[in-house]
């Protein structure tokens, strides 16, 4: 399956969806004006991937900041991953900086919402 790689900008995160190398990550800032449009390709990719996925995956989130409209789209990504976890093992790794309790709290909140393997990983600044 073709890799989806979106480079980071000042207002959008870097996205890597690479089935071949088993690398899945969303990292950086997310505050686009239209977050639905921005995350649309991610949903499309994940839906397609769900049909053919065979191996376990690690999905990494390393968010520096996301606005509320992105929060909703990230929730949708999680729901797709939850569905996927019926088929293959899905491990979520939610990275946050030690200095960023808000980001830790966001991770906790998402983890409570989901029946997914959810690891909160603190990183030094």
């Amino acid at each position, binding site marked *: 399956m073709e890799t989806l790689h979106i480079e980071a900008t000042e207002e959008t995160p870097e996205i890597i969806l690479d089935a071949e190398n088993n690398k899945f990550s969303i990292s950086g800032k997310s505050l686009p004006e239209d977050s639905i449009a921005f995350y649309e390709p991610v949903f499309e990719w994940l839906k397609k991937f769900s049909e053919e996925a065979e191996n376990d995956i690690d999905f990494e989130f390393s968010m520096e900041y996301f606005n*509320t409209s992105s929060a909703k789209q990230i*929730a949708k990504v999680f729901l797709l991953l939850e569905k996927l976890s019926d088929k293959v093992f899905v491990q979520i790794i939610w990275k946050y900086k030690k200095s960023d309790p808000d980001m830790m709290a966001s991770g906790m909140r998402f983890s409570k919402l989901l029946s997914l393997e959810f690891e909160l990983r603190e990183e030094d600044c």
Partner: protein
Amino acid sequence: MGQKQTEREINELTLFEGLQREDLVYIYRGVFSQVITDSIIALTENNLDSVGESSKLKKRVFSIMVECLQNITRHQFIDGRENVTADQSGLFVVCNKDKAYQMTSGNVVNNDAIPHLKKLLDKVNSLDKDALKDYYKQVLEDGSISSKGGAGLGLIEMARKSGNKLFYTFEELDEEISYFYMNTSISQQLEEAPIDFIDIQDVVSLHKFILQKNIMLIFNGGLNQKSLIDILSLINEQAFGKLERKKKMYNVMVEMLQNVVKHGAKYDESRPGGSPVLFYIGQNGEEFSLNAGNYIENTCIEKVTSKIDLLNSLDNNELDDFYMKSLLDFDVDNSKEAGLGLVDLRMKSGHKITYELTPVNDTISFILMQVTI
């Protein structure tokens, strides 16, 4: 509000109303660094683009703005004084008024430097276009450059490029230093006759008001996603104490400003550019307040205020529940609305969200929202 604040009675609403007659007002008070001047320039560029100004005018505005900002950067500190108090910090104001882009810089000067500066300014102001050109050459050949790297060439350049006089005034701060205000204006119709008079006291009053309210930034202009990003980079440069607070301020600002980008109404729909917003940051002791004022359609008021009132009545656990419910409510999920903005503001701030409504006409009102961090 309501009590007499300055001789000219400025308050948030009169400020906004006054600003509304102008397409763009941008005020920044504080320390000037490279990143800050860059983002001020980017903000103005974006605004001039969005209202469709000619590239010739834009170029002229920029070159003067760069001179202004360099002047402030260079002269923002007084030798031998370690701490810059609020009333001594640099000031930059750009506004579009009376069909001209008017830029005013403010910085401290040593009182003993004033006579020379006055002489230079009066000399520049007394010369016509051709005489300015000759004078420029003369100063250039003379090669007398001051210790701060200026030779008055900047002033001559500003007068030449703007085609207008440099209006100025000094306000004494103490026996050693004064505050120096200088205005340069560029007519929107480039070939128009020079502007006779600029009342620089307007800026002085405004400066007093923002000092009194501890405001460091006022942005009044068409707001779009691009200008939002520029304002954010400016905020990232500021010292707000703890990193955690800085992050919170950033988060809250994004939500407040995107709120205006998406829902703000316009007084005059035919006007180009984004939705007008009055945004300012004030400081009150240990706390910072983020304030966004914008027009709102009267038909939307009830929806917004009832939601704020509800959120204000909830405790932390209830807020958390409310957030979760809204997060998974995909009935409210479109490019304009996720239904999470206000609850996020309320949670991040830990304080009640305050708001003030003032009717403007049958269709719109002015809403000023304040979030404390």
